[in-house]
């Protein structure tokens, strides 16, 4: 595949996760290019976080003659038209993180439902019981709905928990902080907060400001979230957990695309493991996380083969 070209189509660059994702792509593809694995692998970001713009971007990539397009999709369905056109033009399409439902595309999915339900399972395992606050993402977006339905079904199945409040934090720390601060005074005691990532630290700040005792806040993978957790852990033995999707998934997707181009057989649907930080490996993870960034896993070609092989079993 040394004379082939792979492009990354990205729809948003405005937060640390996406920045880390782009960085992972950059690191891994630079290496791959200099190793002569691939001819080139540029990344493109739309100026607006919008499916229509990304669809246009993909159409241009078709014209540019890339052999494969790796997509972090703005919408699971709205790009289907453009993806179909790409497939028709003989281009390999791999979607990750934000996946697309178009059957011809490869999907590197994260089980977002599980990301929701595992939070409740964790609270349960901690022996908690009572009122929950749920912080959701951006309304109308696939990921938000998936995680939410995971949380919701788990809570429904468990009489011990009740969601007493729900706000939309838009995966943005400041928004989460603002929304939680607003609703908090109207809520009874909260034992735990279910989150979607990027919002845990904001929630913690809001609780602190309101002079309330911080409940168990499920964390994402941002450095600030882990740092706060560590600080609480050292101060008073605070226990929580973090689960997220690693920005290195872009590297994962790159290798998948490369393998397909190289002729390897790869399943249409793959699952990327959720990256988990626990009380025990917290310090370890923080050490590996760039300051101010997010916890990451940089997948090598070998890792990808291993994970795929495991998935086959």
């Amino acid at each position, binding site marked *: 595949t040394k004379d082939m070209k792979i492009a990354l189509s990205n729809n948003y660059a405005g937060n640390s996760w996406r920045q880390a994702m782009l960085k992972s792509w950059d690191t891994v593809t630079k290496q791959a290019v200099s190793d002569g694995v691939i001819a080139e692998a540029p*990344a493109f970001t739309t100026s607006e976080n919008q*499916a*229509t*713009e990304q669809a246009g971007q993909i159409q*241009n990539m078709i*014209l*540019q003659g890339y052999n494969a397009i790796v997509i972090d999709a703005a919408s699971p*369905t709205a790009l289907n038209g453009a993806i179909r056109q790409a497939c028709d033009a003989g281009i390999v399409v791999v979607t990750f993180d934000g996946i697309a439902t178009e059957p011809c595309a490869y999907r590197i999915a994260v089980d977002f439902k599980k990301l929701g339900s595992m939070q409740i399972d964790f609270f349960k395992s901690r022996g908690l019981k009572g009122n929950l606050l749920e912080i959701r993402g951006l309304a*109308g977006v*696939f990921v938000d709905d998936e995680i939410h339905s995971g949380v919701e079904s788990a809570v429904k199945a468990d009489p011990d928990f009740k969601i007493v409040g729900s706000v939309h934090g838009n995966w943005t720390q400041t928004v989460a902080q603002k929304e939680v601060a607003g609703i908090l005074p109207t809520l009874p005691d909260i034992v735990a907060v279910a989150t979607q990532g990027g919002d845990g630290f904001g929630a913690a700040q809001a609780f602190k400001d309101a002079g309330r005792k911080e409940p168990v806040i499920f964390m994402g993978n941002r450095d600030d979230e882990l740092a706060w957790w560590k600080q609480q852990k050292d101060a008073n033995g605070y226990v929580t957990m973090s689960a997220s999707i690693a920005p290195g998934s872009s590297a994962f997707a790159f290798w998948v695309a490369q393998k397909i181009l190289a002729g390897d057989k790869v399943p249409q649907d793959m699952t990327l493991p959720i990256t988990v930080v626990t009380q025990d490996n917290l310090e370890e993870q923080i050490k590996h996380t760039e300051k101010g960034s997010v916890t990451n896993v940089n997948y090598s070609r070998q890792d990808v083969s291993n994970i795929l092989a495991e998935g086959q079993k």
Partner: protein
Amino acid sequence: MSRQALFATAERLLPAITLGLLLAAIFTEQPRAMSYFGLNLLLSLAIPIMFATLAQMMIIAINDLDLSIGSYVSLVACIGSTLLTSQPWLGALALVCGIALYAAVGALIEWRRLPSIVVTLGLSFVWLGLAVTLLPTPGGKAPAWLSGSMRAQPAFAPLPIYFAAVLSLVGWLVVSRSSFGVILRGAGGNARSVARAGWSLLGIRMAVYGMAGLLGTISGLCLLGLTTSGDANLASRYTLVSIASVILGGGSFIGGRVFPVGAVLGAMTLTLAASFLTFMRINADWQIGAQGFILVAVLALRAMLSRGREAA
């Protein structure tokens, strides 16, 4: 022709010139784009933007601004991918209601003399709320006739070119030539004068908003035909894009100065400007900024021409 007239003509032709320049740049960078297939790919997403732009232009013609057109287009796509497919009559009814609501908002704005900018901002939440309620997670499916017709491959030129030509012509006839268009632009130029001549500003505003609603509806359906499924946030950026397109096309925010042909060309230009970036290799950090530079460059051209005209 005098120098001044020359510059004035160039200024009028500016939207076409910038579009031409962009196309030329893209063709040089990627000769493959210069084909039926290539043009279709480059411009198909401009179709819904053209409609949204004309909708915005109607509103701008009477000195208002519509901050809700993007979410309205998204809502239409959501209705289209759910109700219209499953219960066509109900779906059609919902779309008609949307247009009627638009007209009602126009009436409210005139009746209470409200600033359109906040009313439509509020309205954008209403549309978005309805869309999220209807389609909490992206999906649904466009009616087959819709996605089929947007995939049509007519003879001679690709579909977007036909759309652009027809829209320009109809827009020009209705807004720039017809006797109705005069009243419309007159209301933007001097509403008091129009009212003093006995026209009902209420009627004019309702008609304008109703037409904007209709154009927005068509925009949503075209977009749905292209994407084949709905999404509550599908077209939120159309709000700003449509405003920018109207301005690129030579229109101004006040005074009833709008140009339908320019607006259509502006919509195509903006669509291409975004694509243009994909053809240039730019450092990832600067890709967003490069869009800004392109916008500035395109508009700077206009400034140069009008300077030239004034100096001549």
